[in-house]
């Protein structure tokens, strides 16, 4: 699965952006990299930062290892 990965400058510029009921907060994937799903590119509440989001690096998402059942 392809996700968006910011560099430090992009992270600082975009993380915490809010509009109406929407907020952008990068999260860590299983490789400890900051990522966000590509759905943000289609969110009308993020239209103002769409161009910046579109510049983020596309990377393959690393899932977390499944948790063993207790």
């Amino acid at each position, binding site marked *: 699965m392809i996700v968006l990965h910011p560099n430090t400058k992009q992270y600082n510029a975009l993380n915490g952006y809010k509009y109406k*009921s929407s907020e952008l907060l990068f999260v860590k994937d299983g490789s400890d990299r900051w990522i966000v799903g590509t759905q943000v590119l289609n969110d009308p509440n993020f239209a103002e930062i769409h161009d910046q989001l579109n510049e983020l690096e596309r990377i393959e*998402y690393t899932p977390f290892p499944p948790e063993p059942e207790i």
Partner: protein
Amino acid sequence: MPFVGIGVGVGRQRFSQGGGGVVFDADYQAVLDYATTQGYTLPSSGQQTLQNQLLVDLKDGGIWSKLDTFAVFATDGDSDFGLIDWKRVTDYTAINSPTFTTNVGFQGNGTSSYIDSNYNASTSGVNYLTGNYSFGWYMDTIDASPSAEAAFAATIPGSNWVRYPLKRFYYTSGVSFQAYSNLTIGSNQMVMANASATNLTLYANGSLTDTISIGATKNPANANFLAFYQNLAPNYSDSQLGMVYAGGNLDSQASDFYNAWNTYLTSL
């Protein structure tokens, strides 16, 4: 064209049509007024009537007064309208763009998106008390992954959470207490978890399905409620929810709650 209402309650009346237009229950009208102020797109006129009736039914069933937070994601208003907390008349926050589908609700993406209710029981709780609480959701579509993660989880970073790994309801309080239920979580299902002093009772579509002994002190009293997210990896779910709530114990109202919700849902 939106209905015009006035700020008065109408008790058990669905709504009244007089010369001045339609009058909704004051609490539903407050939701519409808030949405209008925020610039959100309101539901269709027909759905406004259905939503008003849902709220009235919850009041008639003694449910509304026990809720602390309640959001109806399944709407033909816009996604911002779907994120309004009807009880507190404020917004949930859509983090990283969970997908909104008209009349169905929000869906996580399994990697990064979730919904923050902005409801923390320790700071926002009115009816939600240790040993006397309820929370739940309506799930349209369950997580596709084999280890299905949280739908609407009570999370405390690094410590407590309530979720449903492997499609079963799971309760833990720190690392010292954990319990699985026999309730199988599935699609098209309204799940309610009600805590009393010592037990957690679980309902599927209004029917009692399981009881877990949790002890008197094992409650997520200061939990923050997040949809599609839990604080233990794998964190994110791609399930799809139509409604979420939390509040005081609703053991006595489980059937009425489900019936009110189902009446609304099947009318969409």
